[in-house]
């Protein structure tokens, strides 16, 4: 028998996303750019005098970071074929709660603590942005401007990563473009411009109860720290903003959720969602899928909602009764509690700081009152559902694993039942990672949303009981 030795070319780079393996030489070069920019920024934070507010400094360091990151991601995903490539995620220290994840978690958490409680300590950072802030907002940069800038930068860079990672998936491409647009345009640039024109910023994409001051009695809304500057309160612009916030909070939320589910907001518009869907994507698999977590979630998120609703009502009553109930400034108590525990501790420190430990949607899942309201509408008055495709489920668990909201999608899919859950933000990743084409996000008819093998009534009872049946 003649034998021939057949040689196959040397080992090719593993088809693994760049975050989950040793970088190649080109990737290292790009990472070096990110490193250089980061070192400059760190230096600026700790030694404010080095760069001062030199006009070249910020463009240089953030340019290095942006170009390096995008280059790194581009070269990293460049040699993968388009498709789901979650290879090596659970072998990665950063993505699977290893030492790197703890370091990252501590770093981001520390940043939030400093930002909220010692904002002035970031002066070296925000003074870099002074020239830019002056141009955009007409006022000097402060720590909030720095925060908004970094936040937007992360959404854009990691949005670029989403474009590369999900380049085969149009739903993800369009949705990512949407969150990038709303963050950059309506949550960063437009408020900045408004501040310059009206001396007051305004966020068109936030409503009560996520921004509770947008639906408080007028006395709290107008003036310093309120939604509308005093001089605009009687003006058409001021009236428009008041009407806009009320219409969005009370009208658009139920109507749009009826047609599209809560995703129209949570994974297409919202800034918290925007960060979670971009910067948070590498950590989405860390959400807790246990039944215990689901039980906790339902108490905590609705607890926050009840708190805000009660307080809003109380302030209106106080206002209507000539402020006899809570005294002249009843809102003070509210802001102290809400601001400290909910906004700072919950949505910031835990919500983003714990991305590498608890996944990207901690705030959205356990705390956001806007998500709670949208969820109630989605659960009971919406045409949105995730349809399960008959009997094709193989119970592999990719859907549940990559659900950032910790929904055990598989428990429905393997019974052939559609998924109608309050918490689903409609990111569409379960459908993307499913290897058997079992899941589809869609807005169908309201009556048919539970269609599947399961009976609607028993599915509903299960949902209330909070556990899968045998």
């Amino acid at each position, binding site marked *: *028998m*003649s*034998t*021939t*030795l*057949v040689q*196959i*070319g040397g*080992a*090719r*780079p*593993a*088809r*693994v996303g760049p975050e*989950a393996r040793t970088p190649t030489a080109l990737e290292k070069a790009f990472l070096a750019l990110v490193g250089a920019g980061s070192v400059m920024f760190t230096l600026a934070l700790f030694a404010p005098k080095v760069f001062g507010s030199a006009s070249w400094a910020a463009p240089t360091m953030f340019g290095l970071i942006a170009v390096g990151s995008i280059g790194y991601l581009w070269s990293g995903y460049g040699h993968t*074929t*388009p*498709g*789901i490539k*979650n*290879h*090596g*995620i*659970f*072998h*990665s220290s950063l993505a699977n709660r290893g030492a790197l994840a703890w370091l990252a978690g501590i770093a981001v958490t520390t940043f939030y603590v400093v930002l909220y409680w010692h904002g002035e300590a970031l002066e070296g950072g925000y003074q870099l942005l002074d020239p830019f802030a002056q141009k955009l907002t007409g006022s000097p940069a402060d720590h909030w401007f720095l925060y908004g800038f970094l936040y937007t930068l992360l959404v854009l860079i990691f949005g670029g990563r989403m474009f590369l990672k999900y380049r*085969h*998936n*149009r*739903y993800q491409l369009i949705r990512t473009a949407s969150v990038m647009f709303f963050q950059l345009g309506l949550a960063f640039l437009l408020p900045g411009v408004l501040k310059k024109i009206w001396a007051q910023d305004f966020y068109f994409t936030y409503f009560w109860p996520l921004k509770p001051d947008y639906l408080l009695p007028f006395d709290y809304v107008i003036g310093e720290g309120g939604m509308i500057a005093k001089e605009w309160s009687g003006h058409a612009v001021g009236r428009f903003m008041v009407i806009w916030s009320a219409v969005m909070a009370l009208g658009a939320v139920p109507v749009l959720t009826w047609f599209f589910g809560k995703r129209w907001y949570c994974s297409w518009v919202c800034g918290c969602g925007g960060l979670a869907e971009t910067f948070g994507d590498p950590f989405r698999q860390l959400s807790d899928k*246990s*039944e215990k977590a689901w039980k906790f979630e339902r108490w905590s998120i609705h607890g926050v909602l009840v708190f805000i609703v009660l307080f809003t009502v109380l302030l209106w009553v106080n206002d209507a009764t000539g402020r006899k109930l809570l005294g002249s400034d009843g809102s003070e108590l509210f802001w102290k509690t809400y601001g400290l525990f909910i906004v700072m501790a919950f949505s910031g420190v835990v919500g983003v700081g714990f991305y590498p430990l608890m996944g990207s949607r901690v705030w959205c899942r356990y705390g956001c009152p806007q998500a709670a309201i949208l969820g109630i509408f989605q659960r009971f008055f919406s045409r949105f559902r995730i*349809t399960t*495709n*008959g*009997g*094709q489920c*193989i*119970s*592999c*668990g*990719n859907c*549940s*694993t990559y659900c950032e909201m910790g929904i055990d999608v*598989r*428990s429905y899919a*393997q019974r052939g039942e559609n998924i109608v859950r309050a918490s689903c933000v409609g990111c*569409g990743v379960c*459908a*993307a*990672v499913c*290897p*058997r*084409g079992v899941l*589809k*996000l*869609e807005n169908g008819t309201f009556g048919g949303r539970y269609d599947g093998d399961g009976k609607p009534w028993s599915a509903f009872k299960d949902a209330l009981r909070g556990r*899968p*049946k*045998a």
Partner: protein
Amino acid sequence: MHVAIVGNGIAGVTAARHLRKLDSSVRITLISGETDHHWSRPALMYVYMGHMRWEDVKPYEDHFWPRNRIDLVRRWVTSIDVEGRQLHLDGARTIPFDKLLLAVGSKPNKFGWPGQDLRGVSGMVSLQDLQAIEAASVGLKHAAIVGGGLIGVELAEMFHTRGIDVTFLVREHAYWNHVLPAEEGDIVGEVIRAEGIDLRLETELTEIVDDGTGQVGAIVDSKGDRVEVGFVGLTAGVRPNLTVCAGSPIATDRGILVDRTLVTNVEGIYAAGDCAQVKTPEGHRDLIQAVWYTGRMMGEVAARNLLGASDEYDSGTWFNSAKFFDLEYQVYGYVPSAMAHHQLPSLAWISPDRRHACRLVETEDGKLSGISVLGIRMRHRVCERWIEEGRDLAYVLAHLREAMFDPEFYRRWDRDIVAALSGKVAA
């Protein structure tokens, strides 16, 4: 009553769940030597590739079992005492039963190849196989895979994600062509090759060569080619696992013989899933279905019959799905393979980039026999309904949009399919 179930795969677990659903008092013992808890066998590859952790491929949380009073026993069954109605387990333990369900799955085929029991040779079916593959991957440069089925392409993808070169031997002249039509088999072959896999068609393994230490060193194929490899994956199909029946009066052939109610020749003893060979009327081939979905369906029927019903197993309108690297595949109804003796008329559409395809197969009397798609998702319930209602292809094309299941904003492939095929169908 005490029902013992051997095997915690999809058939055994579905039976256990349905037993509990139907009867709150029946005592259920679920025995497995492989793992403590049920897990999704098709998800094995994702654990290796790092998409999921072991705990993620378990479809039920661990508290599910005590809550539903399903007793779990982690032992291998060594023999069945049919007369004494008890199971002998390793560690000299016995478990008495009133009724028994055998859901012991299948084993990788081995065809007596020289060297098939060397270190570094493994199938990919069990958790133990996964552990062996994981251990063999350390420092591995090149692996061979033998047999062109679904597990073979999964194993190829697994090694590929770790930068390990793969030589893939397939006996047929196209990949999986005892299931896929010829053109689809070609497309899948192209996908495999585009990933850089060394796919070799129309060749068979003749020998696995010892490197001198009892470890795999190379393979030789029927064309005489030799490839130096450190691992050989045997994925030339599976056969029913009959080990547990040895020495018992339970009748076996290729599988454990059962009638359509899934009962064996011994009253009160049933078999379901991959291990069962379902007897069919004279003139038809017995059914051995080693597919996730049929295991689940058989488990459901077995549960009802264990409780006294005599329902017949019927897999209904056939369906299946798979994924070859990034290419998804679905089939509904009967689509003859390239190797089928009896071909049926069909209309096929393939996209210009050859990553999307749709085939509509017609029965002899002009009804829809089956639909298969590559790179497109279709609705199970709609396709099934069309087949069961006996729709013709003209109707199917006119309503194709209803069957589309691709994510929102995806290109509407149904338009391309209808445009290409509607001219070929008699109105």
